[in-house]
């Protein structure tokens, strides 16, 4: 059994629609998203950037335990959400909190995990956003399951499953792509290739021509896109979602971007990469690029921008306020959710703690 394969291979160069200087780049088979979509994305980018900055500040103030920033990857964060319909699902990682907020989740609930009050703070079923996955690539299989269940029910749900370049090395990445392909489940796998897995560079992660070249090994179309070009991302991810929804099965998209900041505040990039390596990427910033384009095309005014900045500031304000006060942690929650019904053993154990607390008083 062999089928024609060529169409499953990615383009040799990532798709770009707006170059780093903000100039449109015509691309056969790809078209510039309509102005409203781009302006919406631009506004969301401003909020995402503001969210990253505020989160970093809250870490410095000890209000957040840890924060893996998506600074410089905001175009991916915004586009992977903007292409989804309300009924669709997002499966994010620890790095994708900005995407979760773009999806409309309350920023304070979105930061529950990183703040340390609980493992996850929002309602996955109501928001259609899975809990942020820490064990790498494991959530890609859950995404396949959610999509498969939807398909069995006849829903036209599409699932956006996000992971990093490092996660592609895990066995679960392989199994998720293969299951999705064999069952033709409507999942778009977005790999944010930011060149690093903590300190490990891409060259130690793979010897493949590109990560998108992994698609053909599953019979899945692989595509490469400039991860700092929100226009290209909206186009490529948008049509991947459309194809998945149309029943063409899973799609694999590799977005080429860069982790300009540390892995988290606990990391020390000076040990494994040079400033010279980082600097050029600052010139490829996803915000400035689309802003230049929109201004050049006369699609936004100064007052539009200040409006967007004000919206972003409101989110930041909500973060400062919400994370300002200490949350009240209730030990009973530790025993309440282990099972639908606590076991007799858990009841005994909870009683031991409440007795301790009673005696403390």
């Amino acid at each position, binding site marked *: 059994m062999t089928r024609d394969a060529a169409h499953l291979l990615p383009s040799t160069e990532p798709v770009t629609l707006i170059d780093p200087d903000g100039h449109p780049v015509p691309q056969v088979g790809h078209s510039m998203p309509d102005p409203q979509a781009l302006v919406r994305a631009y506004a969301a980018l401003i909020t995402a950037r503001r969210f990253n900055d505020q989160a970093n500040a809250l870490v410095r103030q000890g209000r957040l335990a840890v924060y893996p920033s998506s600074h410089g990857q905001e175009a991916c964060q915004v586009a992977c959400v903007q292409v989804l319909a309300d009924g669709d699902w997002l499966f994010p990682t620890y790095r994708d909190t900005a995407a979760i907020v773009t999806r409309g989740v309350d920023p304070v609930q979105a930061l529950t995990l990183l703040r340390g009050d609980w493992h996850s703070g929002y309602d996955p079923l109501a928001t259609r956003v899975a*809990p942020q996955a820490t064990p790498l690539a494991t959530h890609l299989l859950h995404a396949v399951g959610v999509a498969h269940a939807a398909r069995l029910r006849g829903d036209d749900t599409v699932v956006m499953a996000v992971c990093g370049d490092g996660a592609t090395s895990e066995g679960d990445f392989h199994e998720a792509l293969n299951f999705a392909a064999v069952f033709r489940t409507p999942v778009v796998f977005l790999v944010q290739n930011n060149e690093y897995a903590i300190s490990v560079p891409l060259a130690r992660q793979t010897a493949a021509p590109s990560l998108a070249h992994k698609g053909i090994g599953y019979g899945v179309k692989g595509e490469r896109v400039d991860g700092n070009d929100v226009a290209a991302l909206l186009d490529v991810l948008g049509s991947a979602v459309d194809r998945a929804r149309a029943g063409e099965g899973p799609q694999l998209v590799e977005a080429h971007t860069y982790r300009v900041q540390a892995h988290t505040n606990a990391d020390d990039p000076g040990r494994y990469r040079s400033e010279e390596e980082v600097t050029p990427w600052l010139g490829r910033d996803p915000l400035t690029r689309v802003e230049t384009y929109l201004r050049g095309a006369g699609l936004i005014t100064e007052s539009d921008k200040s409006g967007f900045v004000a919206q972003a500031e409101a989110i930041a304000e909500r973060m400062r306020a919400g994370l300002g006060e200490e949350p009240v942690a209730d030990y009973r929650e530790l025993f309440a959710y282990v099972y639908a019904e606590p076991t007799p053993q858990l009841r005994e154990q909870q009683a031991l703690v409440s007795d301790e607390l009673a005696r403390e008083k």
Partner: protein
Amino acid sequence: MEKLTMANALNRALRDALRADDTVMVFGEDVGPLGGVFRITDGLTAEFGDQRCFDTPLAESGILGMAIGMAMNGLRPVVEMQFDAFAYPAFEQLVSHAAKMRNRTRGRVGIPLVIRVPYAGGVGGVEHHCDSSEAYYAHTPGLHVVAPADPADAYGLLRAAIESPDPVVFLEPKKLYFSRAEADLSLPVPPIGRAVVRREGTDATLIAYGPAVPVALEAAEAAAQEGRSLQVVDLRSIVPFDDETVCAAVRSTGRAVVVAEAAGFASVSSEVVARVTERCFHSLHAPIRRVTGFDIPYPPPKLEHVQLPSVDRILDAVDELQWEYA
């Protein structure tokens, strides 16, 4: 009342569950047209179609991971791990997700999921086909762990496991698959978490579960010939644990032996000894003894008889229960 094998009972439980609830989905390796290597899913694809009972690619982490996602989205997956040792690739999905999702989401997302594992030895299986892996699961908070010892419990507990809102590791003793016994399948679905006294006795209590139960009953029968009256408790459910029934039994005799096929070190049998001793210390005339597998990899077929708890080994342990202190 009809006589049937545990394999029949399990197949009937799956069939009845698939009929009763169309969110139930059965999948795994070779569970479709073949009906599973032990035929537990025999005929299900034919009756319910390839969407309700289907084969997957050969990847256990994939099977369990996809099942978790399906459970997140309203379905009740029942997956088969072909043999005990072949569930290990799914360990991370089981421990870090199936067991923790409800807790992670503050109760918002439960994972109603059954992981069926044909387990333990006594069938002349080669390496990796005879592991008793219950300790790994029983130690993991968030999982229920059950092991039937007869066809009636196999049916009832599997129905209960499928109806459970939480993940259940369902351990099927391979060597009992084809043992036949009467079973009334019309009884109401039993709760998970209750042990049962299989045989009354007054001198000492044998505590067993899964494949060790028939051996314990045999030992009790043999002891009776020698004029010693042994009570036999079948745990049925390892998590949750039925302290009430087990402790009442041990208090009634003052002596106990725990019988299990798994290696003994840091095992379910360790837990039974520890928690029963903690609760019944002053009713005990002698320390609780254990008859378990040795702390070795499961032997090859020609030597497995050395590893399996035997009637004689159980009776030896009973003899050591310091009768002079009575």
